């Protein structure tokens, strides 16, 4: 959306193809954004304004079936029988959230009160933080690195956002349920962004959130349908077993299924992490291995929204330079 807006404002004719019913991706399901707890709706509103431009044609609920290049023109065929001709293509297929049910040992989709970080955001949006039986949870655990830094599921990389998302969500839980006891189970706290460390400290000092260094090995339920988790507390050096009312899984980011198909049909190179591989990691992160095809945002790696918007603007610059010079 940002690339489209930038290119349109620079005078390009842009066609935006979206596979979902509406644009906005995961952002529209999120509640507040870290680190300043801004409403995601505000950012969504900004992006929607960006694409509200006479130079932009939008096709929603549209899937690309074929992409080929003839001379210097890309021909894109859609499932609605449309043929779109383009001088350049920007791939902005985003990411898929890791399907938490793949970590079978956590019981997502099996135990009533095991939810994902995305489910929790939806609860925040609805203003209903409740257990399956309608009661208010008193003891809540958040599991970091679900589907990230995990060889068992084939994802060695860090999804980068889950630590700060967990801290943000833990605070949001405490703000809604003052008496709640909240536990974050982490491998490492990766607080690399601006204001991240500050919010992490605030979570501990102001909100009394407990951070336990260790991976949850499994979840089960008691006869009262309370969750039981087993954790290794690596700082205390002992195994831990704890009953919880709710377990929130901080789902990581993966290459999107749509992106994978486009990589196949376009002959685009992907990396060890299965995201699109940039032509150069330092000064060509928007460039692909094919002249005229560019990348924007989380289709290349996990990114925050701030980084995604910056990356999109850089992609627009790369496209303009290509259209002027004929070289990526």
């Amino acid at each position, binding site marked *: 959306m940002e690339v489209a807006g930038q290119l349109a404002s620079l005078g390009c004719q842009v066609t935006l193809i979206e596979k979902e019913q509406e644009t906005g991706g995961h952002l529209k399901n999120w509640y507040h954004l870290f680190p300043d707890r801004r409403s995601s709706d505000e950012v969504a509103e900004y992006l929607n304004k960006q694409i509200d431009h006479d130079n932009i044609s939008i096709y929603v609920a549209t899937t690309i079936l074929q992409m080929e290049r003839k001379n210097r023109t890309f021909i894109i065929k859609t499932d609605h029988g449309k043929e779109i001709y383009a001088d350049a293509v920007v791939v902005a297929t985003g990411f898929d959230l890791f399907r938490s*049910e793949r970590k*079978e040992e956590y019981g997502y989709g*099996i*135990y*009533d009160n095991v939810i994902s970080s995305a489910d929790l955001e939806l609860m925040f949006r609805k203003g209903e933080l409740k257990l399956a039986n309608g009661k208010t949870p008193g003891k809540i655990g958040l599991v970091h690195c679900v589907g990230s830094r995990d060889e068992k599921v084939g994802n060695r990389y860090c999804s980068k956002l889950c630590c700060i998302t967990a801290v943000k969500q833990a605070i949001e839980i405490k703000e809604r349920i003052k008496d709640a006891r909240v536990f974050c189970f982490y491998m490492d706290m990766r607080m690399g962004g601006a204001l991240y460390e500050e919010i992490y400290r605030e979570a501990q000092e102001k909100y009394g959130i407990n951070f336990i260094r260790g991976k949850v090995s499994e979840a*089960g339920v008691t006869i009262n349908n309370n969750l039981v988790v087993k954790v290794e507390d690596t700082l205390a050096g002992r195994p831990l077993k704890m009953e919880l009312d709710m377990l929130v899984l901080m789902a990581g980011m993966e290459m999107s299924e749509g992106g994978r198909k486009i990589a196949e049909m376009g002959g685009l190179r992907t990396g060890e992490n299965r995201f699109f591989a940039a032509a150069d990691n330092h000064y060509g992160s928007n460039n692909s291995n094919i002249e005229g095809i560019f990348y924007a945002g989380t289709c290349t790696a996990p990114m925050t929204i701030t980084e995604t918007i910056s990356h999109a603007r850089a992609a627009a610059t790369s496209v303009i330079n290509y259209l002027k010079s004929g070289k990526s």
Partner: protein
Amino acid sequence: MKKDGKKRIWSEYQKEIADDHFFYVRSCIRQSFFPGSEQFFLHFMRNVLGKDVFENPSHTTCTGIGYHSDIVPFSTIMTVIARHFALMKESGYKNIAISCVTSFGIYTEIIETWKHFPEELEKTRDYLYKATGREFDIPENMAHTSDIIYKFRNEIAAKAKNLLINRKTGEPLKVVEHIGCHYSKMFPKYGVGGAEFPNVLSGMVEAWGGEVVDYPERRHCCGFGFRQYLVQANRGYSLSNTAKKFESMRPFKPDMVITNCPGCNMFMDKWQYTMREMEGTVYGENGESVPVLTYEELAGLVMGYNPWDLGLQYHMVQSEPLLRKMGIEFDENDKFRTKDGRQMPVPENLINV
């Protein structure tokens, strides 16, 4: 608990189980501790279903217990397994049916090793040929005997004389299913239902009318763990694992435990005696302990076989409370009599008598 979630996982771990023509490899300890189990399996397969199950008298131990005790080197156990495959090839079979979970784990570990390190396969071919002059093929189909009973669970249900229902209350019996660690925890794809929510035993329980108990320590090891038990000084560790499981399942008031591993069955059965002797703790209702059956013994009860023909009397925890709940008639006097009426010695200190 959402059953659909489990079904989704199960659908991802459906293994192909051969239908007929099995090369059967026995367990070292099953016929000693639970003599009716293998007997029932062979009888059911051959005489009830009319399947071809072949045994070769030259088959030996897989040496798994020695391997897990660091006595038998990996190259040796690979060669022993290769010899079993050679016997299978010479007998003209391609489907192997493995009676023991330890052995099943050994077979899967070795086959996976050969897949990922083909040079190990070549070395093993060489060792076997030099030692015995034999050659072998890797089985086309490999199943644990519990997989096979799972495959035919509905045929058993169709012939059921005693469903897993409490005859007095009409309620389903509550069954704890315990899967041996080496069945699918190492390689989930080899187990029916995977490693976290295995379906191999729960599928039988549900097909036969019972209700599966999901308790917090369901996945925990029974406590056998080879060196926990084989090293005498570590046996307290073995016992504490079993105690942890029984403490965890106790609030659910299980009517029985079924297992698919000989080691698990032995320990969950016999450690109940130990816990009762040491601290007077029992984990069943009415001061009784919880019967621990093999899946074949349970299948036999469901099909209406005499409990003493199934060998239930050879467990430490006796099954009478379960038999009464299921409404199965039995003659206490026949319990330790041979078929021709001779009285056998009666073990002391049996539980639930």
